[in-house]
């Protein structure tokens, strides 16, 4: 049976889940990322959102922002979907499947922030969504170039030393994940962070960081 190339930088594989040609696997590294994603998804499910305190100007008065139950339900649903997509992405052993999960993370992220009515936040969400959409070009493009130049999408094959993946494909893949998860371009994310609903806002950051960590492993291994 085929398996992970031996000097894998994420460590030896621990467990394999087969879905036909798409083979998901756990290595110590991805298991760590997986555990982290599970942890924060559970937190998003069980915890109530915080109530942000705002100071009323000109006095000692303050008020708290509460989230409406309907919005809460929607955001929780999106947070769970985002958590599941992250789980799928970190253990995926197939490049295209990884990119699909990545774009699912992108779209759930838009969903979480789009629920706010604050115009400022919505504006940031929109710009963020535009970047997430154009990021599909480098994302899918990277996967497609990998497939065309190597003939395979399975990470087990690609991580082996026999196959050389072109640099441009790797760069595209990283760029795509950066766009979907916003990894270093945190400008829009900083605006998003202002919105209430800490557990849900937090899962946006969790997912993008984990995706970035995973893509770094993939790109270094290939």
């Amino acid at each position, binding site marked *: 049976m085929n398996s992970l190339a031996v000097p894998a930088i994420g460590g030896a594989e621990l467990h394999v889940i087969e879905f036909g040609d798409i083979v998901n696997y756990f290595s110590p590294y991805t298991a760590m990322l997986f555990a982290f994603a599970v942890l924060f998804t559970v937190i998003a499910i069980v915890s109530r959102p915080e109530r942000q*305190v705002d*100071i009323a100007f000109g006095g*000692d008065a*303050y008020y*708290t922002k509460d989230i409406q139950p309907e919005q809460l339900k929607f955001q929780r649903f999106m947070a769970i979907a985002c958590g599941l997509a992250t789980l799928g992405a970190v253990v995926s052993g197939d490049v295209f499947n990884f990119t699909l999960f990545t774009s699912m993370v992108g779209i759930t992220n838009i969903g979480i922030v789009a629920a706010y009515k604050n115009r400022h936040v919505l504006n940031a969400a929109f710009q963020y969504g535009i970047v997430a959409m154009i990021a599909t070009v480098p994302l899918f493009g990277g996967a497609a170039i990998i497939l065309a130049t190597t003939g395979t999408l399975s990470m087990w094959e690609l991580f082996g030393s026999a196959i050389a993946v072109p640099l441009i494909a790797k760069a595209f893949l990283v760029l795509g994940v950066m766009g979907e998860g916003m990894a270093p371009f945190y400008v829009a994310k900083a605006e998003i962070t202002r919105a209430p609903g800490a557990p849900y806002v937090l899962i946006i950051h969790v997912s993008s960081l984990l995706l970035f960590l995973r893509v770094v492993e993939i790109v270094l291994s290939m």
Partner: protein
Amino acid sequence: MGTGVTGAICIAAGASAALDMLPLWGAGLLIVVAFPFFVVLLGLWWNASEGEGDIPFIGY
């Protein structure tokens, strides 16, 4: 109660790793899970009486 249990787990994991009864990574994993609870529960065990939750600090 919880303090004792988690503390015991930490010490037992450390000791069994030292005696080769448990692989090092296994002991590490146990400690990673138990140690945070131990620290927090230890503090909660010996801290002063609990008060009601108050609103956050909103400025001087």
